[in-house]
């Protein structure tokens, strides 16, 4: 560990952690990140760039890192690509590897792209790869795809779990630097509920990068003591929630903020009961953004070599992690901030060959401090180039002398530290739709007018002076928590620190007229150079959004955190317009990449969507039922016995119903109780049918339209009393129908005295169908089920096996049939009682598939299968159901339009196949045979089955002008030829309908 200093920082040197990078074992300490541990081992080369495969080192120390993307894995499933080494906390046994290189990081054949880069300027792919036409997909695109991409996706399903949590608070503070801590403290002091979150593993933000020997004091305390004391105080407050490793990544309307908490990724052996990540969704009365600022890199030729680093990052590595990032350094800076780095490194024994200051005449306490430390300062400096392959080894400085750039003697070094001041992190502010404003002093966009109840404090609004930052945070925290105006008098801190002139710089560094051939990178990760930006503007891409999309600047996984401002400035300079005029690309969530699994949370497997089961579900499972998903419900589709396939099982089930008796769980049908003096009038207005003339104890098949005249839903509706109806709906339509009814009841006809209650869950519905159904049920009930007492379409109240029941005589099979409604809790018991009683009669359980066949044999439609949202009652042959004397009902006016009455509308008919084929549902129908595409289509098959009772296939179809075509021969074109079909009436079995009245 040649680059580790012996003491200081926030690491624990008492325990060494072994880890591997690209198969080689290294050691680090508790408190390290992967980046700091690699640097401590002298490893700078950690990645290859996206496009040119240039060797890349670690640029930053936080989430803004554009270069150091690596894969961390525990096994093939717990395998995470594209993590930033600067954010990965070290644990014993951590395995990491580099990405996007072949065969190895040091020897990457992809480097050829860099040599050929003259042919790959921005947007080159729009200009070529067009010939021959098919080659794009066959040749060019696969090559480009293989070259693109960063890491590799895991090859196994992720076994880890994710959780979600909702929380409310008075004040959410994002970021725990000095501004965030001060804000949280003052907000908490009012008794407010406060949540303080930070993306880091420790609270303190930028303060954690302060040197142990720093003379800076807050309220007389050393920085680390002040942080510890403040956090301790917050911890002791039960109304404060503290979240580390938690990134506020999304800001949504109405102060809804999404946070991603990483729970186990930093642990050597995560407890299996722990979730890997937790998604917090927080509704905050007020939000305080204390998100800090990101140091701005400088744009000069060769600024991407490993060993070229942000100055502040070098401070962080030294002061927080005890790591020297090199031996000989040149510091290039536009302001005072990097002087602290130079002095800290100097004190740690790093040779500082020069501070190259962009200012023409740098002065002040920091300059004096550097001078007295013996550090050479070059004023008016610029950088012309750097040298070095996998590590910088030389820097070529220049000096701007009366407007021209002169070359200086090159300096050999292994570390170049750059600082162009700071860029406030306005990402969340902008996501909240606050308006950013350009600040000439900050040389950046800063928060302007807020759109939500939110305030930015500290560095993220361009305030860098520690004392001002603390005051800003504290005053804002107090004001937002107590709903009072912000008053800086409310907070005071005693701060001892040397003032810093940040003097931000934006754009490319000055270059001589004969420019270096080296690339000056603006966006490190996407390999976007100053030349690419110039090309884009030359080609007419003037809006920054166009430049971004054409050059891909700012579109990498760091989303331009270090590059956007420089890109903007360079484009503005090229176009000769002020920066704000070029515009600013939109900030979008997430602030940093966020795991898909965290969004999905517990929604996986059976919890992906709620499962609704009926009272007989377990019974059916035990009988070997095969289930189908219908809406949220699980419905038994058929009950295979022995080696039966579906067709055999369905044929058997159908025959049982036709010949003796079948039992079917119809619970999933929607049920609505409609009660009140105006219940019949309400139904009159909703459904096409007449309800006033329906007698108590009788039921009727109802059709509900949409207001545009097309069939919406259907179901049997029974009148239980003058003012009470039991309405059934389709399974999938239950909620929709109730919603529609409530809409009309509440908003169109609030004068009607009628109340609607969903009773779907209340009743278990057992359909007993077939010629023996009465024989099965009568012994179990006190209701007189005789044909005279209970004719078809009647309903009776009574008891079955001592349980209260609503007994419907109703048939969806064409056989005599009953539906037993009992309270759902009794469903299973009554089902089993009926099933036992039916054994003598050969009762057979049947599923939805047999139900479909049975109803198709009778020409009864299924909404959604034989109708599709474009079918009117007349199309479906249901004109008879429409109340003759009704002036209005939902959808009636639409039926009066000419288009609803044309003779060529598709009408429901039956189809028979003379040659015995079972048609495929969805197959199309034509008038003429032997057509070639595009054919003139006249309709399609909606339902098709082999009818066991008839011994031949049957089908229902919607055919243009179908009812006028009875007896005609039409054709169903299939891939292997046309199938001849004959148009029939839609009723195939028991046309007179005698059986239903048995």
């Amino acid at each position, binding site marked *: 560990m040649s680059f580790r200093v012996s003491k200081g920082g926030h690491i624990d040197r008492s325990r060494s952690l072994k880890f591997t990078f690209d198969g080689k074992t290294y050691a680090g300490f508790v408190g390290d990140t992967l980046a700091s541990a690699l640097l401590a081992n002298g490893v700078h080369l950690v990645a290859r760039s996206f496009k040119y495969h240039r060797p890349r080192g670690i640029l930053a120390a936080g989430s803004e890192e554009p270069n150091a993307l690596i894969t961390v894995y525990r096994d093939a499933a717990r395998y995470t690509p594209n993590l930033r080494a600067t954010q990965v906390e070290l644990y014993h046994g951590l395995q990491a590897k580099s990405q996007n290189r072949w065969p190895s990081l040091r020897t990457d054949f992809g480097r050829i792209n860099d040599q050929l880069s003259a042919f790959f300027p921005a947007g080159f792919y729009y200009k070529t790869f067009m010939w021959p036409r098919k080659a794009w997909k066959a040749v060019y695109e696969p090559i480009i795809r293989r070259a693109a991409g960063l890491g590799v996706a895991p090859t196994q399903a992720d076994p880890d779990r994710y959780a979600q949590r909702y929380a409310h608070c008075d004040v959410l503070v994002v970021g725990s630097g000095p501004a965030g801590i001060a804000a949280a403290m003052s907000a908490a002091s009012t008794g407010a509920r406060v949540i303080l979150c930070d993306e880091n593993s420790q609270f303190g933000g930028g303060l954690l990068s302060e040197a142990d020997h720093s003379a800076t004091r807050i309220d007389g305390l050393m920085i680390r003591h002040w942080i510890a004391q403040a956090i301790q105080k917050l911890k002791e407050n039960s109304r404060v929630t503290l979240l580390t490793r938690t990134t506020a990544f999304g800001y*949504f309307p109405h102060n809804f903020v999404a946070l991603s908490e990483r729970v186990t990724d930093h642990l050597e052996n995560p407890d299996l009961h722990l979730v890997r990540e937790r998604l917090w969704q927080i509704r905050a009365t007020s939000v305080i953004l204390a998100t800090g600022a990101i140091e701005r890199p400088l744009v000069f030729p060769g600024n991407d070599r490993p060993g070229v680093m942000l100055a502040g990052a070098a401070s962080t590595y030294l002061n927080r992690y005890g790591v020297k990032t090199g031996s000989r350094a040149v510091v290039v800076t536009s302001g005072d901030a990097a002087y602290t780095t130079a002095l800290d490194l100097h004190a740690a024994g790093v040779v500082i060959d020069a501070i190259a200051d962009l200012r023409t005449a740098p002065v002040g306490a920091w300059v004096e401090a550097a001078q007295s430390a013996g550090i050479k300062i070059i004023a008016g400096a610029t950088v012309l180039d750097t040298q070095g392959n996998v590590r910088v080894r030389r820097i070529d400085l220049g000096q701007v002398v009366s407007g021209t750039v002169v070359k200086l003697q090159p300096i050999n070094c292994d570390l170049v530290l750059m600082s162009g001041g700071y860029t406030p992190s306005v990402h969340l502010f902008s996501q909240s739709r606050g308006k950013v404003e350009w600040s000439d002093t900050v040389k950046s966009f800063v928060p302007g007018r807020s759109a939500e109840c939110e305030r930015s404090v500290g560095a993220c609004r361009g305030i860098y002076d520690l004392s001002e930052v603390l005051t800003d945070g504290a005053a804002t925290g107090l004001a937002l928590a107590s709903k009072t105006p912000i008053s800086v008098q409310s907070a005071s801190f005693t701060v001892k620190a040397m003032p810093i002139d940040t003097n931000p710089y934006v754009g490319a560094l000055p270059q001589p007229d004969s420019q270096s051939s080296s690339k000056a990178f603006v966006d490190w990760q996407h390999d976007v150079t100053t030349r690419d930006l110039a090309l884009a503007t030359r080609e007419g891409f003037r809006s920054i959004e166009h430049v971004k999309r054409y050059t*891909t600047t700012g579109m990498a996984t760091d*989303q331009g955190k270090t590059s956007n401002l420089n890109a903007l400035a360079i484009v503005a300079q090229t176009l000769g317009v002020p920066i704000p005029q070029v515009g600013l690309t939109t900030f979008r969530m997430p602030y940093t990449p966020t795991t898909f699994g965290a969004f999905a949370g517990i929604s996986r497997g059976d919890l992906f969507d709620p499962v609704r089961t009926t009272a007989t579900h377990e019974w059916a499972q035990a009988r070997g039922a095969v289930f189908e998903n219908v809406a949220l419900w699980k419905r038994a589709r058929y009950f295979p016995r022995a080696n039966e396939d579906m067709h055999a099982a369905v044929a058997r089930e159908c025959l049982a119903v036709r010949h003796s008796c079948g039992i079917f769980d119809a619970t999933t049908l929607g049920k609505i109780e409609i009660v009140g003096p105006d219940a019949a009038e309400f139904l009159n207005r909703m459904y096409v049918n007449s309800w006033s003339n329906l007698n108590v104890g009788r039921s009727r098949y109802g059709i509900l339209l949409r207001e*545009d005249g097309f069939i919406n839903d259907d179901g049997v509706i029974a009148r239980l009393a003058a003012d009470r109806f039991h309405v059934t709906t389709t399974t999938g339509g239950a909620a929709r129908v109730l919603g529609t009814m409530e809409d009309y009841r509440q908003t169109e006809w609030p004068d009607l005295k009628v109340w609607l209650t969903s009773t779907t869950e209340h009743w278990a519905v057992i359909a007993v169908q077939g010629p023996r159904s009465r024989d099965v049920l009568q012994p179990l009930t006190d209701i007189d089920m005789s044909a005279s007492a209970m004719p078809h379409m009647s309903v009776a109240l009574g008891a079955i096996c001592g349980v209260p029941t609503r007994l419907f005589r109703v048939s969806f099979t064409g056989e005599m049939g009953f539906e037993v409604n009992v309270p759902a809790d009794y469903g299973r018991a009554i089902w089993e009682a009926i099933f036992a009683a039916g054994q003598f009669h050969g009762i057979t359980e049947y599923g939805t598939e047999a139900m479909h066949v049975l109803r198709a044999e009778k020409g009864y439609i299924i909404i959604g299968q034989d109708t599709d949202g474009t079918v009117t009652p007349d199309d479906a042959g249901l004109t008879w159901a429409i109340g003759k004397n009704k002036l209005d009902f939902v959808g009636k006016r639409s039926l009066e339009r000419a288009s609803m009455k044309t003779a060529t509308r598709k009408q429901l008919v039956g189809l028979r196949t003379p040659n015995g084929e079972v048609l495929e549902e969805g197959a199309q129908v034509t008038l003429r045979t032997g057509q070639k595409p595009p054919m003139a289509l006249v309709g399609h098959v909606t339902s098709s089955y082999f009818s066991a009772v008839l011994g031949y296939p049957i089908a229902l179809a919607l055919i243009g002008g179908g009812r006028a075509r009875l007896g005609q021969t039409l054709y169903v074109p299939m891939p292997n030829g046309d199938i001849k079909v004959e148009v029939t009436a839609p009723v195939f079995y028991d046309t007179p309908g005698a059986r239903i009245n048995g």
Partner: protein
Amino acid sequence: MSKQPFSALSLIWRAASRHRSWQPQWRKAEPKKAYDAIIVGGGGHGLGAAYYLAKEHGLTNIAVLEKGWIGGGNTGRNTTIIRSNYLFSESAALYDHSLKLWENLSQVLNYNVMFSPRGVMMLAHTVHDVQVSKRHIHANRCNGVDNDWLEPEEAKAFCPPLNIDSNIRYPVLGAALQRRGGTARHDAVAWGYARAADAMGVDIIENCEVTGFRRDTAGAVLGVETSQGYIDSRKIGVCAAGHTSVVLQMAGVSLPLESFPLQALVSEPIKPIFPCVVMSNTIHAYISQSDKGELVIGAGTDAYTSYTQRGALHINTHTLDAICELFPHFRRLRMLRNWGGIVDVTPDRSPIIAKTPVPGLYVNCGWGTGGFKATPGSAHVFAWTMARDEPHPINAPFNIERFRDGYLIDEAAAAAVAH
């Protein structure tokens, strides 16, 4: 064609001068006083319409007015899915017309729009889905549109990351695959049309917002008021997507449109893993992988109308639930960026490409969530409609009167949830 044709040779040639000799792909045009035709809206549909007006109808004194930057609306915000396997014959004709234009678009425009017919696979999860899928497949075949049924194992062979475990909540029961479908590079479509139209003299005027219409006493359009002044034109086509209602209201035209937020997102780039496009309408998952390596994922629309170009978190969450269920290997991948667009939706979810009641005013709108795929075809028939003042046979059914008369082309209803 552009004075600077694009090719590998031209790239190599201009590399010698460090690419300093490239000219703007389209001029920064100042508005003239009058044009033979004006297109309002510089997205793919509008730029394409200008291109076809110039190319096929001899109108070159044309301006495209864009209130922001071209391609900045839904053209630059969609998930780039291209397919034509629509149910109704009217739709199939429109979208397949478009697909055929896509197949040669790079060559025609001399701009690589990266049309990649990688196959679009639409999953079926329920018995009802299977019925609907097969109805589409049969209808498509009869209409000359390719679409094949795949059993789950075949679907997995086509898309290896797909989870076809029969024990998941909504198992994959099969899929409809249109092999000619695929993706394209959305920005390139806008830029490619812009460059080709510009080369024929079309003025592309950015940062030019339409603020009103002038009409004569008979009601016909005379021109538009814009943020850059009044411009005269007797032929104005509106291709303003989510803002169509806003623009047409200035001309006194009401259309049955509502504008909703629609979101999409991408993952961080990964090496190639996803070879095609997969769509699941039932559990709301739409996914492909871009050439750059990002998984491109479409989410649903929000419930409410909005012009904010952003939607709610739970809409994304819902989509990622489905993605993780169908592709459990992707659960550890990370969302890089999420964004929103504004989609204009008609009652039957089919577009309007038509004359309006105002003489000289035409509209191309109502594409809902699926307009990108139609860009070339829509632009082509819209240009025809504007040039001849009568619809092309392909867009004749997509008129405004259908809502009054009830001749809807209801693709959404036809896939309605059942039972």
